[in-house]
């Protein structure tokens, strides 16, 4: 917020002159017929994307030259707002003269850039960026129809933010590398969520597969776990909390000692741990065959203590209860 945001609703004022001009008179609106394509020696492709129920729908016509895979002509029809119509018009224009493979590389960001009046001023307001995504998707659809392949084959990565084309992997990496803690930080680093905001959390403009809040939550949780594990690994035994020390001792007992005792049908449990004069006293309770076994008070006890000295810390004294 700030002074410039206090008067809302100036949506159309944020459209570039190019957007307005294309909306008022889209040059590539219309269709290509079978006969027209035939006359060009081209194959006609008609691709539909979106649905009226979602607020945006676009149909793209391509006349693709056989042999060279070159798009000789492109036309569109669109059910959508001004920015959707303007984006579709630019997209159709950009396709002409390119091969199908080259056209697939056109993104919504290219479309938006070519609608700018000035290089550094966006052509459309952030919440309208998703309208240009349609233009990108319909190209992939047309290419998949032409090549007879699945649309997904053009997408190498899982995209979280369609408007800024930011992948799941990028977002996860950025959170980890920069230790990001808020969605705003993710947006500042990647632009994900800066436009139509649908990908930030459920309940926005569009339903999404991934949401930034969930990704952040999951990655933070993973990082937290790793940090905990690492801390317990490297931390000096004396500076650990009681619970950490208990866990450490139990993990050694579990891995190294209990299997040996179990061979004779015995076991043990830790009852308590206590600090005394710089020593850590570990109170244990013998179970099974160990109960009443004379060795349990002598040789076995010494062996357990020795083990813990080696694997955990020298300060440990083991006391049976």
């Amino acid at each position, binding site marked *: 917020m700030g002074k410039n945001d206090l008067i809302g609703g100036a949506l159309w004022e944020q459209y570039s002159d190019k957007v307005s001009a294309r909306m008022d008179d889209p040059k590539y609106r219309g269709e290509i017929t079978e006969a027209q394509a035939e006359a060009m020696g081209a194959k006609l492709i008609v691709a539909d994307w979106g649905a009226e129920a979602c607020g945006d729908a676009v149909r793209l016509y391509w006349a693709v030259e056989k042999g060279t895979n070159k798009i000789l002509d492109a036309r569109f029809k669109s*059910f*959508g*707002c001004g920015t959707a119509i303007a984006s579709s018009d630019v997209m159709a224009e950009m396709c002409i003269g390119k091969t199908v493979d080259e056209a697939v590389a056109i993104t919504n960001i290219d479309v938006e850039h070519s609608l700018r009046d000035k290089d550094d001023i966006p052509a459309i307001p952030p919440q309208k960026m998703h309208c240009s995504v349609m233009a990108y998707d319909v190209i992939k659809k047309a290419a998949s129809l032409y090549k007879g392949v699945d649309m997904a084959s053009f997408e190498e990565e899982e995209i979280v933010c369609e408007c800024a084309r930011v992948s799941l992997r990028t977002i996860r990496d950025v959170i980890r590398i920069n230790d990001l803690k808020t969605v705003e930080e993710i947006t500042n680093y990647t632009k994900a969520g800066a436009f139509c905001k649908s990908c930030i959390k459920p309940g926005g403009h569009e339903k999404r597969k991934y949401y930034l809040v969930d990704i952040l939550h999951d990655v933070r949780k993973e990082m937290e776990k790793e940090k905990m594990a690492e801390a317990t690994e490297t931390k000096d035994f004396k500076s650990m909390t009681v619970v950490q020390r208990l866990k450490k001792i139990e993990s050694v007992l579990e891995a190294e000692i209990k299997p040996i005792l179990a061979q004779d049908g015995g076991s043990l449990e830790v009852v308590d741990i206590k600090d005394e004069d710089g020593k850590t006293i570990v109170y244990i309770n013998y179970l099974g065959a160990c109960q009443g076994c004379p060795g349990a008070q002598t040789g076995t006890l010494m062996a357990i203590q020795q083990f813990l000295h080696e694997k955990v810390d020298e300060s440990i004294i083991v006391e049976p209860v």
Partner: protein
Amino acid sequence: MQKVYLDNNATTLVDPKVKEAMDPFFTQIYGNPNSLHDFGTEPHPYMRLAFDRMYKAIDAPDSSDILITSCATESNNMVLKGVYFDILRHGKRPQIIISPVEHPCVTNTARFLSELGVEVIQLPLNSDGIVDGQILKKYIDPNKTALVSIMWANNETGLIFPVKELARIAHDNGALFHTDAVQAIGKIPVDVRDADVDFLTFSAHKFHGPKGIGGIYIREGLRLTPLLHGGEQMGGKRAGTVNVPSLIGMGYAMELAAENLEFEQTEVKRLRDKLEDSIASIPDTMVIGKRELRTPNTILVSVKGVEGESMIWDLNKKGVAASTGSACASESLEPNPTFVAIGFDSELAHTGIRLSLSRFTTEQEIDYTIDVFKESVERLRKISSSY
């Protein structure tokens, strides 16, 4: 280029007579009405007149309160939050009931209260797109419901809700009844005594008064914790120095609105019907809501194959101001609940155009709009992928 304003449900022009009546209160009669000196008392007779006009316009008994607020949003906040402080938070009656098509100042306030533990019920609509008595009876709980808040007329469709019947059902179940009458005043008769409501909200700029002033009617004997605490203005029920020029303007505008009701029901309706019939004659268009259930100035029409924002863009290029409740610029792509209730195809959810007239709309403007509307539909359908 001709300019035609057909967005009168958003706001209206201030009637020049109203503006003239307000004028002296900026530079001549400008005292604070709470001051003791002559400057302070000078506006009193004019303020009294403004209140008389408002009480008369909605038939409020002298023993009831009409508090002056800054807008309908404040009024609606005051009712919902006041009832929260007075009843809801004590837990004996923790529930409020609203319609699914209330203005955001009701729905978002209700959502805020739900975060504080209030149970909020959003009623379904019937196949006419309104809440009827049957529906309210089904959902109201005589042991839990503290407040029923349902608008008198809807801003987008103009559909009128049966508030008298709904108020009776609320009272039969021990609940209070509030209605947001922002879209009703000046369009249809509004009588608080006949409708027997407890609270009623209104806003001056919807009936040719100034912006930034509204009001709330509170039935005699009801207490409502204030939203604004401060000085002793209006008996401490709504603190803050009264906006005298706007109060004068609102009083006069409300009187004029009441006087023009007949004109609204005949002449404005005639022009609205003319525009509506012409639009309906375009193939694959559909007007939402039965005509006899709507305010006389409003049309919400769906034009197949034409997205709402594109349509208002084209109309605007030709000087006609309309609005769309289904813009793809809106926060959510969820279709308008009225569309769904009436049984509209979800395909049409983004095709709604609202045209709302006022008593200042002329026949020539309507004729011009009819031509412009047809041209725009024709152009956009040529571009459309779905027509």
